[in-house]
């Protein structure tokens, strides 16, 4: 599909990645075809007709192939040169959506273009942000081990994230957090990740465990730690240690008793809270939600159910070990899973090819990610390395979150499956993301600034 074998002019290209890219895009088109296929219709005609989604996706793939060729033919210096500028343009585009935005599926993050196509700046901004971070970290005067530069890098990543949240694109906002993985590789202290995960575990515990029971548990835990620490620590530091432990205890209890409920009731939308609660198998009472109460004054808050996840799990679970076979998935044909050609495309794969197919497919992805890390580690230029890590992080986050949400491990957020999901913006973004990396990799002997 996207074999650039004709680009003999380009040397040093990592063909493994191109093969993997081509394979995944092909699988993607076939998945979209599975979702849309109707028994008895003349699929060759519709493939060429350009009306059906799979045929559109084919066109997108062609456009992407052209774009990829174009990127491979450019000079890699362009990317360093325009990294900061593109970032600014990306942020401006995101701001522009608040004026020009078109409402699709409840999020006002699309800018309408000619010919019925829509552009989602938040998608493109992933590329620009990756370039900008790579640019910032690779600057000679920047020492990433000091806190100031870490904060600046964080700010670069979080600005588009904040804008995405304002556009009601929670999923895309979370993607920017994945850049922390790349930063971690560059020396971001592990404490950030550890504290982050602790906070995550605490939030999860808040959802699962009874409120008072958790408070008591935390108190007992704190008491136990103080009891143990009291003997270990030298006399002089005793007061400090106990104060620190008490401070952490107050923080935890505060988070558990006040912050988490506040976030669920006042920050998140009702449907978001419901999705998160349904993931741990609980019902969320929407009448507690301030936003839903504002919207539906007088009316009883509608209780959204977990239809999506349920149907998605049914579809994947019904695939069994070997799957039902290509085009034989009953759930896919019956359109039981909503958004099946975009966010829930993994379900069609799971149903048709079963556990074996899924495992092979995920293996392909994992191989792809490891290949990218290998590429990253062989760069002489920091810019290229950081950029490649950004690509790996973004891809990983997309894959992990998307698949997890279809199998009920993660609450539903609008995140596509890279190179598989239907949609021009998504495919285009990942193509550009990957091929810039390949272009940089081709020049791995050069030291770019």
């Amino acid at each position, binding site marked *: 599909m996207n074999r650039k074998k004709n680009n003999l002019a380009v040397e040093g290209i990592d063909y493994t990645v191109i093969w993997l890219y081509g394979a995944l895009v092909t699988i993607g088109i076939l998945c979209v075809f599975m979702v849309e296929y109707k028994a008895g219709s003349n699929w060759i005609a519709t493939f060429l007709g350009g009306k059906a989604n799979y045929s559109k996706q084919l066109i997108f793939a062609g456009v992407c192939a052209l774009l990829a060729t174009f990127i491979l033919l450019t000079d890699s210096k362009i990317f360093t040169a325009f990294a900061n500028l593109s970032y600014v343009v990306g942020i401006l585009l995101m701001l522009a959506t608040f004026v020009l935005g078109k409402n699709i599926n409840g999020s006002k993050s699309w800018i309408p273009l000619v010919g019925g196509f829509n552009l989602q700046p938040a998608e493109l901004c992933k590329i620009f942000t990756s370039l900008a971070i790579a640019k910032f970290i690779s600057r000679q005067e920047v020492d990433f081990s000091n806190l100031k530069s870490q904060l600046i890098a964080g700010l670069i990543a979080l600005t588009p994230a904040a804008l995405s949240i304002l556009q009601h694109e929670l999923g895309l906002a979370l993607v920017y957090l994945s850049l922390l993985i790349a930063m971690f590789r560059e020396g971001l202290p592990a404490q950030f990740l550890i504290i982050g995960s602790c906070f995550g575990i605490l939030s999860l515990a808040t959802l699962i465990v009874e409120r008072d029971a958790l408070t008591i548990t935390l108190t007992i835990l704190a008491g136990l730690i103080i009891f143990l620490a009291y003997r270990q620590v030298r006399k002089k530091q005793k007061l400090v240690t106990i104060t620190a432990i008490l401070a952490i205890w107050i923080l935890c209890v505060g988070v558990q008793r006040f912050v988490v409920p506040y976030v669920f009731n006042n920050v998140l939308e009702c449907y978001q809270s419901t999705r998160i609660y349904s993931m741990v198998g609980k019902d969320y009472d929407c009448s507690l939600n301030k936003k839903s109460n504002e919207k539906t004054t007088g009316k009883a808050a509608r209780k959204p159910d977990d239809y999506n996840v349920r149907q998605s799990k049914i579809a994947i679970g019904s695939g069994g070990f070997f799957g039902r076979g290509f085009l034989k998935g009953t759930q896919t044909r019956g*359109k039981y899973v909503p958004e099946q050609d975009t966010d829930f495309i993994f379900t069609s794969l799971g149903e048709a090819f079963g556990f074996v197919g899924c495992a092979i497919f995920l293996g392909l992805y994992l191989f792809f990610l490891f290949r990218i890390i290998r590429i990253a580690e062989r760069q002489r230029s920091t810019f290229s390395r950081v950029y490649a890590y950004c690509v790996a992080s973004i891809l990983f986050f997309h894959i992990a979150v998307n698949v*997890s949400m279809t199998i*009920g491990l993660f609450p539903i957020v609008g995140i596509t499956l890279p190179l598989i999901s239907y949609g021009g913006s998504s495919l285009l973004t990942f193509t550009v993301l990957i091929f810039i990396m390949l272009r940089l990799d081709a020049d791995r002997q050069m030291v770019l600034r």
Partner: protein
Amino acid sequence: MSAFNQNRSRIVQLIFIGAFVLITLQLINLQVFSTKYKMAADNNAFYRKVIYPDRGIIFDRKKRAILENTISYDLVVIPAESKGTDTLALCTLLNIDTATYKKRMRDLIFKNGSVKPSVFESLLTTENFARLNENMYRFPGFSLSERSVRSYPYDCGAALLGYTAEVDTGFLRRHKDEGYEMGDYFGTTGLENSYEKVLMGQRGIKRFIRDNKGRIQGPWEKGEFDTLAIAGKNLYSSIDVELQQLGEKLMQNKVGSIVAIDTKTGGIICMVSAPSYNPNYLTGNQRKKHLVDMMYFDPRKPLLNRAVSTTYSPGSTFKTLVGIIAMAEGVIDDQSTVSCGGSYLGCGRKMGCHAVGTFTLKPAISKSCNSYFAVAFRRILDNAKINNRDVTLGLFNEYAYSFGLGKRLGVDLPSERMGNIPTANYYQKIFGKNWQACNIISNSIGQGEITTTLTQLANVMAIIANKGWYYLPHLIDSVEGGDDYQMLARFKVKQRTKNIAESIFEEVHEGMQGTMEFGTGAAAKVPGINVCGKTGTVENAYRGESLKDHAFFGAFAPRENPRIAIAVMCENAGYGATSAAPIASLLIEKYLRDSIAGPERKAKIEQLANMNLIPPQMTRLMKKEAPIKKPVSKKKEPKA
């Protein structure tokens, strides 16, 4: 530079692997170890359409269909597509108001959703169907869907043919492994019930894929796993539908029953249970209403098959049997005489008698002399050779059992009763160890504790006609394509009574012929045919009120080469000779000659048909119920 922080590359890789392992574990959980998702998926996506087979047809002895299938139409609607329907016109055609229309639509949408077809009005009448069919173009979203329903072209035989009903949860629980499902029909009564296995056929199942809104997308796997419906097998019965119709006509306005048996085969030629009803009342869309009317509001209980499910004291018709047993045991012979002065006083208690004089067996039967049979019965019980009443009664009962009494005959109809031939054991409990023949002397004339069904009585007549052998009475002679379930095998086995000399039967025949010529049955003579008959008149009371006697008549004909044995009974009709006997004579003539000859005999049909013998206690109840429900008048309406 690139060596810097390189161990963190490993950590990143570990994070990646960790996430993928977690995902894989959940996939194993969902896809490999959990079956519930597969089931949920099948529930989602498969629509199993049951293709109902046609039930088997039942033919009479001349291969005329008496129970067959016809097509009826349901008005089906897909609510989502019914936007442009001319509601007013439809309501006018169906004779409902728009409020009803709206309510029904709401209910259908609530029950079945608005994109799936639901039945708006089931089992349309032929007029409604014709009117709708012309106007369907005005009602988008509506369509007429055909389905097979049972029909009874001769409007008769309700009690024996039975009807079908939709299965209920209780039935499904009882017949778990027989493949019934909600929405199926099964034979509830009559032949529909006893031959259910044969008649039902085999359902076909088509699997369709449906989408998230329940719309059908097409067959699954191109119908590879679909099964075809196999129609039920046809049954050939021994019923003569003309005789059945005549019998039902004659039993109009009476309560009772008729059973006629082909003596050569044991096949039942006609079986009437009065009051009868048009079986087609239980097929249309008014089925439930009619059923409730008959089940709860008609004191005559028309749904009861009085030929097999009710037992009566057989009355004097039983005397033939007492005579035969006494002769066979050698306690009387053809020369034994008994004098009767108008009543039997041998037991100290007066037992009334119709005839006066001195009788041998033959005239005793003809004149139905109580005294003669009381004496004969006492002689059997007090047999000096045995000198033990328990043994002699046991002996008597053995004869009775060999005549098919006191046990279920095994007629191919459900809910057959046993009747009762009381045992010595039973009397010991009542009268003590030393019970006397006089204690049970009523049994000698077919009253007391002895009860039989009318079918048993008809069978006794057939045995007497055949002089000691019979086939079990049955309605179905053969199954088209073979009797796979061996349901008919027992009807092909020749049954014999205890060894009784042919001469004894000759004696009884003589007496029974006498009945018709100069005895109690003289009113029921059939010109030109030697009929042997025996009347019976049974005293009875209902809740302490003494009622008119039940009229019985048992007969077979022609005497020389018996072809038909018949038993007729009319509840509370008084003397047997005025109702039961002439009805039997007409049926015999019709069967043997194929028609009723002469205007006089034809007039007799009308006269008997118009004779109202509905017992007074029932009439009273009917009058009481009439203001609430009118099941009686409804029965006269032509089939809707």
